[in-house]
């Protein structure tokens, strides 16, 4: 029995090829501009610092990419990050010995959040954005109650070293962790059956269901992955800042969505991948860094952020012209 060569039957037009490559083109352009405006930007030490910042956004983008690929969205990522951040700080209390217990607590938190999200979205048929919005609010209340408004604890030295100490010259441990997670994510999405099913569910839920894919399980698992990875990200984030603060995750909600959209993942699901999201994360970090350097006040930064997302949406996410428009 001969297996025929698998021939790609996709006719990818030039326009969509450019669209796919857009994020990388934009990223290179942006880095060049940054170098022109502030020489020394592409200095290896500085760039590694940028990569370090971007790894946090990149890890958060893993969960969001999974959620967007199935056609949903996860708006509880920011508050899950905040909760696992303060939880990790509290359990670690600056001791190296409490690293594993803290990790365990954070993983359990992620699992619980993911299961709640998944249950609402899959079993109760609640639209993802509302379910995650509601759960996000509950998590926010939960960590406010947990810390009673005053976050305690600090990071263990080992976790701080991951984010703050350079190894092999200029590389940070967190960047290595991000690269490892990124490779795992890309392999999972592109090379496994599970990943293929995620794309299938995102493209057409009904067709996937009739093809025998357990859509409920796939969507459920996606939200569990999203919550667990966000929880891990919060756990690593405490290493970066050392002290415990409230609402750290708020910065990551819209920026991560923007990063994933720039990266080419479609809002309605089924298209895209993590490599683009990773590049998008770096780009958003560079942009934020740029806005800080140029010293725009907070108000201007917010307007620029919102305008940027709208611009990206106009480039990437316009739906087809239907009759009813």
């Amino acid at each position, binding site marked *: 029995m001969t297996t025929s060569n698998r021939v790609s039957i996709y006719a990818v037009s030039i326009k969509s090829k450019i669209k796919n490559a857009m994020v990388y083109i934009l990223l290179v352009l942006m880095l060049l501009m940054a170098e022109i405006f502030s020489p020394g930007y592409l200095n290896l030490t500085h760039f590694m610092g940028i990569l370090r910042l971007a790894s946090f956004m990149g890890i958060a983008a893993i969960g969001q990419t999974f959620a967007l690929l199935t056609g949903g969205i996860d708006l509880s990522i920011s508050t899950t990050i905040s909760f696992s951040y303060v939880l990790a700080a509290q359990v670690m209390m600056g001791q190296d010995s409490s690293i594993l217990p803290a990790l365990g607590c954070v993983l359990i938190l992620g699992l619980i959040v993911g299961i709640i999200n998944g249950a609402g979205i899959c079993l109760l048929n*609640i639209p993802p954005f509302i*379910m995650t919005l*509601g759960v*996000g609010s509950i998590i926010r209340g939960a960590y406010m109650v947990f810390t*009673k408004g005053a976050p305690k604890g600090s990071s263990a030295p080992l976790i701080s070293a991951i984010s703050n100490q350079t190894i092999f010259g200029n590389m940070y441990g967190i960047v290595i962790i991000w690269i490892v997670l990124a490779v795992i994510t890309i392999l999972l999405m592109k090379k496994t059956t599970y990943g293929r099913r995620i794309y299938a569910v995102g493209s057409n839920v009904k067709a996937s269901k009739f093809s025998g894919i357990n859509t409920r399980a796939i969507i459920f698992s996606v939200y569990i992955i999203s919550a667990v990875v966000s929880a891990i990200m919060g756990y690593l984030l405490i290493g970066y800042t050392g002290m415990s603060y409230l609402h750290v995750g708020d910065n990551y909600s819209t920026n991560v969505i923007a990063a994933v959209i720039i990266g080419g993942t479609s809002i309605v699901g089924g298209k895209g991948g993590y490599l683009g999201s990773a590049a998008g994360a770096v780009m958003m970090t560079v942009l934020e860094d740029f806005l800080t350097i140029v010293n725009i006040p907070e*108000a201007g930064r917010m307007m620029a952020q919102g305008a940027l997302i709208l611009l990206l*949406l106009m480039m990437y996410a316009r739906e087809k012209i239907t009759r009813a*428009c």
Partner: protein
Amino acid sequence: MNKCKSLYNKFRNPNLQYRYSHVFLIYIFLFVFIVVMSIANEYFRDANNFRNIMDSSFPLMMAAFGQMIVILTGGIDLSIGGMITLANCLSVTIMTQMEGVGGALFAILATIVACSLCGAINGLFITKGRLPAIIVTIATEIIFNGIALFLMPAPGGAVNKEFAKFIGARYLGLPVSFFIMIILVILVRILTNRMPYGRALRAVGGNESAAYSTGISVWKVKFKAYVLAGFFCAIGGIYLSARMYSADPQIGTTYSMNSITASVVGGTLMTGAIGDVLGTVVGVFIIFIIYNVLNLLGVSSYYQYIAQGIILIFALIISSFESRHR
């Protein structure tokens, strides 16, 4: 006798039951809830408490009206909080610059125009731009909050005294907000249930292509819905300015989610087309009475976030059961 019979038959009409069963149920729930709470807690029974609830729930009421209209078309508006913040900061900024009642009137007019414009921006990006409503409104919320922050970097400002007194006054023992609410409820109900635009709203929410085939200009209907949302946010924000005597660039953070919660509790289906103002009113009251009860019981205000989320999810669960049985 015949009149009684026809009234009874009207009541037994399955269409009526289908349309109003949810609203009816939550009115009963609200009534029972209030009675139980009044018996249980002495502070709750106080007439002043009810007036406070009415006053403090008015901005959310406006936000929920706007949100309900948008949800009826099948869309969503997460920038409601941003528009309320903007309305608040803009009206106070203008009133600080311009003295007197003229200043207050100009502030009201300018805020209404500005927020309707914000709603129009939303509507344009969503209809003509063919972008998904969720992310557009998330982005515009950030923009509106940014503009508000630009106008008012820190809480403060001054409000015209006559205007604030008028808004805070009591006639017949009821606050002004109650009267404004009654008038607006009647107007919105007429709009959504009797007027052609309301019918077009529900048609678009039910089935866009079918509505288009009937000759309804879908994009215009959706666009107007978002503009109306902006208009209601303007009223809510102006009211906030009068009540708070100042502006706060952080004021609007909870309104987006709470307006959705109020609409869903009130029986508005997220898929569109089904929803009633009367229900939304009850939804707002339920949320605020729960907050009030939590306050009176001495529960930390942090629990409000948890309560918000739980009410929303609970309401969605009930809503999903209802749709399934249909």
